[in-house]
């Protein structure tokens, strides 16, 4: 039983580490700030998620596991706020995102024709 738990926890920790490394590689490979943020979000979702899960398996049913869950909740609630703030700061600062397709104008126009129809 302990061996199975240890094994599961190590698999989780290694998977988490893998996703952290992938996120870091993405951070370097992506061309500009907005696409880099996407790469970073792999770290604070799957990376952190698997690491916390693995550590919780190590700790068992204890206060430490509950604290780890609080940590995960903190990540889930503050992560998007920080990312959003960073993205908006970049836009405000006049950094134009490198885009293959900009559907903003199309979408606004489509909505206006829809509004006229209804």
């Amino acid at each position, binding site marked *: 039983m302990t061996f199975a738990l240890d094994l599961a926890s190590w698999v989780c920790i290694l998977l988490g580490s893998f*996703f952290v490394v992938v996120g870091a590689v993405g951070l370097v490979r992506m061309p500009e700030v907005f696409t880099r943020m996407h790469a970073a979000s792999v770290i604070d*979702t799957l990376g952190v*998620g698997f690491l916390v899960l693995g550590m919780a398996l190590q700790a068992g049913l204890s206060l430490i596991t509950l604290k780890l869950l609080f940590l995960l909740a903190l990540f889930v609630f503050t992560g998007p706020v920080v990312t959003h703030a960073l993205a908006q700061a970049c836009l405000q600062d006049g950094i134009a*995102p*490198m885009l293959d397709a900009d559907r903003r104008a199309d979408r606004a126009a489509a909505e206006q024709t829809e509004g006229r129809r209804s």
Partner: protein
Amino acid sequence: MRYVSLTAFLYLFWLVLSGHYTPMLVVAGLVCSVLCLLAAIRMRTADEEGHPIELFRGAITYLPWLAVEIGKSAWAVTKIILHPRLPISPTMTVVTATQRTTVGRATYANSITLTPGTITVAADGDKLTVHALVTEGALDLEAGGMDRRVSRFEGSA
């Protein structure tokens, strides 16, 4: 009701983080929780936005659903990162949030940001400007599946 629940949550938080259960500390925790409640009331954060107890029931099914979505798209982004040619097609789009409440809209915007591959870069009323790593991600959001799911989560309130 909301105040009682907020105090209970704060007290539980204290108990979990402290880990010491001598009578002095247990009572001190309770006193602190009540003081925090009073401070929250004075700051007007002890309302349906700061402590949305109505949403807890919906969250039981919404959070696992969101976790699965995050896992799926995180894996998709992982494959893009490790792909030798880095097949990205960054796209900006606008989606409409159909939620009734500000908490619902914030949940939707944050869920978009949490899912790797899409980031809410601006929110103006019910219009969310979204940056997507690949065009398919933007099209998925425009189709509105996640929007409907968040509305259902909010509707169960």
